[in-house]
Each structure stands twice: as structure tokens, then as C-alpha cells.
């Protein structure tokens, strides 16, 4: 949960000497998994530049994938797992097992070769007096939750089956230490805590049952978290929402679910409507009056069917394609 990131950062800042920075970017794992080596190399180079710019500090990761990617690609980086650091400085007073009395630990697939991390997690749980059930496949033999390698994006049916197989290996709630594992299992109805949930006292079964954010909310959460840090920790100016971000959408829940399935973000829809309303380039269905507009963003062309409704825009449908329309005729008129 974004709030847990905020709490953890502040806790580390108070407990560690020399100052603590925060990277809210990406280690590049998704690009690596997608085989996009050029994009991946760019992200690693960018990470290295920033790290050097900060005076080559120790890098602390909560995520085993980040840890593995950085260890393999930037071996000169001094790496620590967040769990080891928390052991060193001590857990916050809020940390408690709560309703997590007995859990099955699911080690994320990327932690396979991080045996010290496996031990750190188990020691933290022991410290919180949480009983552990070891799954038949664990530690260096652990399995994937269904998210790894972008499986859930490429073939969601296989990914769901992988998750279900893992879920079937224990009746106990799961305890994980990867946010993707948490949300992937929770999406399949499995009670799953992230270890940060217990560390920050979010240890009720309802916390384990909450669903993860959809793609749009995930991006929104990141933006809010960054703004919260800017305003409350670093005392810097928060950039005010402008342009397409001011477009307020309204849509029925089933459409929201459809857009999620189609990997269309709310901000994609906002951009199409903003462009259409600014330029006047839109179509109207004369049978129902709805407007339809489209816009190419990256390689995707998004189409949105909508109508203005007071200060809002009611969205009726959205779809996309990857083929590119060559509409060069009088485009700017």
C-alpha cells in the first residue's frame, strides 16, 4: 500500500544515519522480461547515473526482482534488502502479527538465489510470533505467482492457473514479500499479506483480503505518493494538475472492468477526450449523439465514445488497435 511505503521511508530516515533517498522509478525488470534489451539497458544506465549522482550510496530494495536485476547488471552497487535493514534497526512499534497467527510463506520466484532474504523474512515472522507453514516448494525451489516474466499480461489464463495451483498448496493465508505476488494471489481470492502489512500493523484478515489496484489506480497511487513526498517530506512544489489530467471521467463499473481487461488506462481516455475537445476533431453518431474520437499514443491508437455531462465526460466505450492510420490529409486545419 502506498501509505506503507511512506511510513517505511520515514522510519528508515529516522533510523539510519547519513540521509536516505528514495527511488520511485523502475529497475527495468519488465523491459528485461519482455526481451526489450534496448529499453532495459537505457533504464539500467539511467539508474546508474542517478546512483552515481547521489554519491554511490548503499541501495536498499524491498523487491526481490529489483534486487536480482541490480545485482546482475550493476555488480558494483552495494545492495541491501529492506528486510535485513529492518532487522538491524529494529521493527517499528506498530509491527504485530495480529490475525496473521499462522501463515504459509510464499517466496517470490526472483528471490530463489537470495537465501539470506529467505532467512530475514522468517526471522521477522518469528519475532512477530507468527507461526510459519513451509510450502512444499519454497526458498530456492519456490514457484511463480503467475505474474513473473509478465505472464499475466501475455496469457492471463495460464497466469491464473499458475496462481491457483500455488494457492491450492496451502489452506493457510499467504505471507509474501513481493507486491505483485500479493496482488496476484489476492485477485484470485487468496488471503495474502505483504510482510509490510504486518510491519505496519495492517494485520487483519480484511487487510489480507483487499484487492490490489487496477492499472489506472496503480498509476494514480504512484502520482499521489510522489506528491505526498514532495509536499510533506521534501517541501517542494507539487505540480498542479493541468492539461488532460483535468478531464473528469464518469463511467459505469462494468466499463471500468472492460477497460482494465483491454489495458486502457483512465489517463489514455482523458488524453483522447482532451485532444478531441481542444481541437474539435471528433465524430458524432447521429443515431445516439455520442462523440467518438481517437488519438495515437505511442504505438497504440485509442478510440473513445463519450458525451460531455456538466463538468464531466461520460464514457460509453473505449477500444484500441496497434495499426497506425495514415491520416495526413488536412490534419492541422
Amino acid at each position, binding site marked *: 500500500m502506498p501509505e506503507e511505503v511512506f511510513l517505511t521511508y520515514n522510519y528508515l530516515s529516522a533510523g539510519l544515519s547519513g540521509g536516505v533517498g528514495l527511488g520511485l522509478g523502475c529497475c527495468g525488470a519488465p523491459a528485461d522480461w519482455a526481451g526489450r534489451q534496448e529499453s532495459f539497458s537505457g533504464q539500467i544506465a539511467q539508474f546508474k547515473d542517478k546512483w552515481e549522482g547521489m554519491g554511490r550510496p548503499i541501495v536498499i530494495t524491498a523487491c526481490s526482482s529489483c534486487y536480482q536485476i541490480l545485482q546482475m547488471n550493476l555488480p558494483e552497487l552495494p545492495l541491501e534488502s529492506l528486510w535485513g535493514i529492518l532487522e538491524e534497526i529494529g521493527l517499528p512499534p506498530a509491527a504485530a502479527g495480529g490475525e496473521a497467527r499462522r501463515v504459509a510463506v510464499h517466496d517470490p520466484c526472483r528471490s530463489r538465489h537470495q537465501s539470506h532474504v529467505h532467512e530475514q523474512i522468517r526471522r521477522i515472522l518469528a519475532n512477530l510470533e507468527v507461526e510459519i507453514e513451509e510450502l512444499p516448494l519454497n526458498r530456492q525451489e519456490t514457484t511463480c505467482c503467475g505474474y513473473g516474466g509478465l505472464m499475466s499480461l501475455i496469457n492471463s489464463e495460464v497466469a491464473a492457473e499458475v496462481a491457483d495451483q500455488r494457492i491450492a498448496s496451502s489452506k493457510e493465508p499467504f505471507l509474501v514479500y513481493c507486491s505483485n505476488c500479493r496482488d496476484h494471489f489476492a485477485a484470485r481470492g487468496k488471503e495474502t499479506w505483504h510482510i509490510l502489512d504486518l510491519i505496519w500493523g495492517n494485520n487483519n484478515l480484511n487487510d489480507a483480503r483487499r484487492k490490489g489496484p487496477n492499472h489506472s489506480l496503480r498509476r494514480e497511487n504512484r502520482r499521489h505518493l510522489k506528491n505526498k513526498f514532495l509536499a510533506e517530506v521534501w517541501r517542494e512544489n507539487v505540480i498542479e494538475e493541468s492539461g488532460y489530467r483535468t478531464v473528469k471521467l464518469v463511467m459505469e463499473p462494468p466499463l471500468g472492468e472492460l477497460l482494465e481487461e483491454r489495458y486502457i488506462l483512465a489517463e489514455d481516455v482523458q488524453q483522447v477526450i482532451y485532444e478531441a475537445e481542444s481541437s*474539435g476533431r471528433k*465524430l458524432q*453518431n447521429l443515431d445516439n449523439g455520442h462523440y467518438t474520437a481517437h488519438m495515437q499514443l505511442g504505438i497504440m491508437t485509442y478510440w473513445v465514445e463519450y458525451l460531455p455531462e456538466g463538468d464531466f465526460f461520460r464514457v460509453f466505450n473505449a477500444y484500441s488497435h496497434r*495499426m497506425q492510420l495514415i491520416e495526413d490529409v488536412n490534419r492541422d486545419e
Partner: protein
Amino acid sequence: MNNESRSRVLCVKCQVPLEEGKVSIAYLSNTFYADLLRCPLCGQVFIPEELALGRMAEVEKTLEDK
């Protein structure tokens, strides 16, 4: 598409109904021509949902798998 259905989509900017016309579409270094509804004045095209999610998606996948 017949003339009647064609006239039910209006280009708001030019205030004229779309008409069927040749449109170029490009993907992965391939260029195609298709008869689609387009504005006769500004060239704005309409791709209906069933085309985007049907035939176009099939061709995209075929080209990607090549």
C-alpha cells in the same frame, strides 16, 4: 457499408457525413489500403470497435508472429 449507414457518422469539425474512401494503414513496416469511412474534407477516419477488435487485431497478430 451502404450509403444510409455511412451518413450516420458526422465529422464534427467539417459538419459533413463520412464517406467510404481509401485509407492507408501501416504496421511493422507494412502498408495496407482499406476502404473505410472517412471525412471527405479533412480525412478524419472512423474505425468501429468490431473492426479494431476483429479483423485488425487478427492482422496485427499475424504480422507480429511472422
